[in-house]
């Protein structure tokens, strides 16, 4: 029935003279096709990966009611709440104050088993219709993680996307009891320390800090990670003062330093436009305090407007 609708038929719809300029019928027909649920419920239900079938069900239908799962969830959350409560009596962030004071290095993420991969999420331009591939697995002896795949810069043929070719791995936001957001507090440290083994490709490290306004939700602080291709491991130490502010990948004019008291996640992105396979092996990601590094922010801030 939908296919039989031709362009002259559609033109009879009021205020449709402009529709005659439409060449591709598919997106147009999809927009006027009747659906079982209202359009608003579908567009606001969340992200749908391209290629996944569209769920034409109302939101309350999609909930899976399972009493045993719910009870297990409640037990887990109350257990977490109890642990958080008693951790307060130990010290800040569950550690004694003396340990907090003496700590100069802290390993934040390490890969010691398949459970470590649950803390990470991977993504590539396949989300927007591209052809890259990305996979994450635990390395040999359960000591490292291996991020590998194939980068392909061919843009998807949808008529509007011009650039493509990215692969990324990002840590998930830590959650406290009852799925409340928890933050990493790195204010005692000033350097990011990674032990990695790459294939010579340049990566981008992105640190996502907590923001307040919705227009800041895509803000991230980025810096470059140049990998050596050799069989030897690479210890990379990047001071946090070097990270610059970007929004959706675009470097901002109004720069400021990264505030370390509420960090949500860290991510690695590859987008060097070199098609082909890639590999990145990560041993650990940690933070450390370098007393010799006293720089607050590496970039000068220029006054763009006359001072008021």
């Amino acid at each position, binding site marked *: 029935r939908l296919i039989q609708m031709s362009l002259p038929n559609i033109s009879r719809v009021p205020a449709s003279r402009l529709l005659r300029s439409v060449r591709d019928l598919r997106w147009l027909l999809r927009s006027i096709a009747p659906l079982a649920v209202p359009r608003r419920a579908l567009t606001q239900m969340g992200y749908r990966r391209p290629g996944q079938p569209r769920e034409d069900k109302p939101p309350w239908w999609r909930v899976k009611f399972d009493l045993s799962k719910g009870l297990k969830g409640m037990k887990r959350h109350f257990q977490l709440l109890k642990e958080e409560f008693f951790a307060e009596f130990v010290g800040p962030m569950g550690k004694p104050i003396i340990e907090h004071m003496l700590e100069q290095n802290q390993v934040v993420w390490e890969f010691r088993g398949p459970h470590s991969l649950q803390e990470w999420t991977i993504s590539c331009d396949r989300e927007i219709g591209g052809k890259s591939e990305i996979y994450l697995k635990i390395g040999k002896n359960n000591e490292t993680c291996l991020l590998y795949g194939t980068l392909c810069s061919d843009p998807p043929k949808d008529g509007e996307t011009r650039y493509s070719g990215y692969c990324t791995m990002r840590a998930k936001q830590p959650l406290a009891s009852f799925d409340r957001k928890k933050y990493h507090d790195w204010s005692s440290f000033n350097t990011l320390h990674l032990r990695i083994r790459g294939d010579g490709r340049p990566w981008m490290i992105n640190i996502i800090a907590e923001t307040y306004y919705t227009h800041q939700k895509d*803000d991230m602080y980025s810096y470059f990670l140049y990998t050596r291709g050799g069989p030897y491991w690479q210890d990379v130490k990047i001071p946090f003062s070097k990270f610059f502010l970007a929004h959706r990948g675009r470097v901002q004019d109004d720069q400021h*330093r990264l505030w370390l008291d509420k960090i949500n996640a860290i991510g690695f992105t590859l987008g060097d436009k070199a098609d082909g396979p890639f590999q990145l092996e990560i041993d650990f990601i940690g933070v450390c305090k370098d007393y010799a590094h006293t720089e607050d922010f590496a970039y000068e801030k220029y006054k763009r407007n006359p001072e008021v």
Partner: protein
Amino acid sequence: MTPLIYSTLIISLGIGTTLTFASTHWYLAWMGIEINTLAIIPLMTQSHSPRATEATTKYFFAQATASATLLFAATSNAFFTGSWDILQTNNPLSYTLMTLALAMKIGLAPLHSWMPEVMQGLTLLTGLILSTWQKLAPFCLIYQIQPHSPNLFMALGLLSIVAGGWGGFNQVQLRKILAYSSIAHLGWMVLILSFSPPLTLVAFSTYLMMTFSLFYSFMMTKTTHINSLSTSWAKIPTLTALTPLILLSLGGLPPLTGFLPKWMILQELTKQDLALVAVLAALFSLFSLYFYLRLSYTMTLTMPPNNPAGTLPWRLNPSHNTLPP
């Protein structure tokens, strides 16, 4: 910020507080408070970082809500009693609303949740203004409201002492610790307000002196975290030896100044047959004392790891005249 704008804002801060001090009409007092709020907003967003903007937004929301409630309460008092005079606040509903609005203004529990986040986003100087100067005008109004029943003030006071102590228990950010310290001290002041207003003034004045000194010490050593406080001995050794006195004074330990208001408040509460309230206030103050002691411990009583270059600033920076010539 140009000196002209900066001085305009500072003068506006002064004018706002003075206006509230000098007024007997609720409208004028409210106006003075609003001038104060509006004057400090640009000072808070000076640094343009997202955290400062967030702090300013939260501060504005809290203060605007409180101001609206205060104005509504004053108007309803005028409606019921026919008087706009601050000293003639007789209607119970208006009086309660005003108290709650002013409690939110100064950050008394249970309306205190905006305070630590706001302080965390500000520079130490702006935090100092927020903790000291911005409390004067609302406190002046609280002082003038004739208390019909002491229960509300006692409840606010006790809750603030508990919240201030419990909230600052495991903080490592100095600005948040100072925010919780402020909440706890305001609790002590409000606790005794119904029985002996001069004691509230004594407590307030000692709080102002101690908080100003502590903020200034942190500004001189440029520390905002407990770990950077622990290496501040290398910057100004004399200050490192004196700051624990300020901290323990805030904690209320004799024979330091901060003990005086607490002692007198406990004595007055006992005279009013409120020994239980006095015991509870003293016990919950132990939480606050714990984190003041912890700060003293990390700053002065321990020697944390440092590198040789980090131990030299006191030799190289002659601008701090805290060493004997």
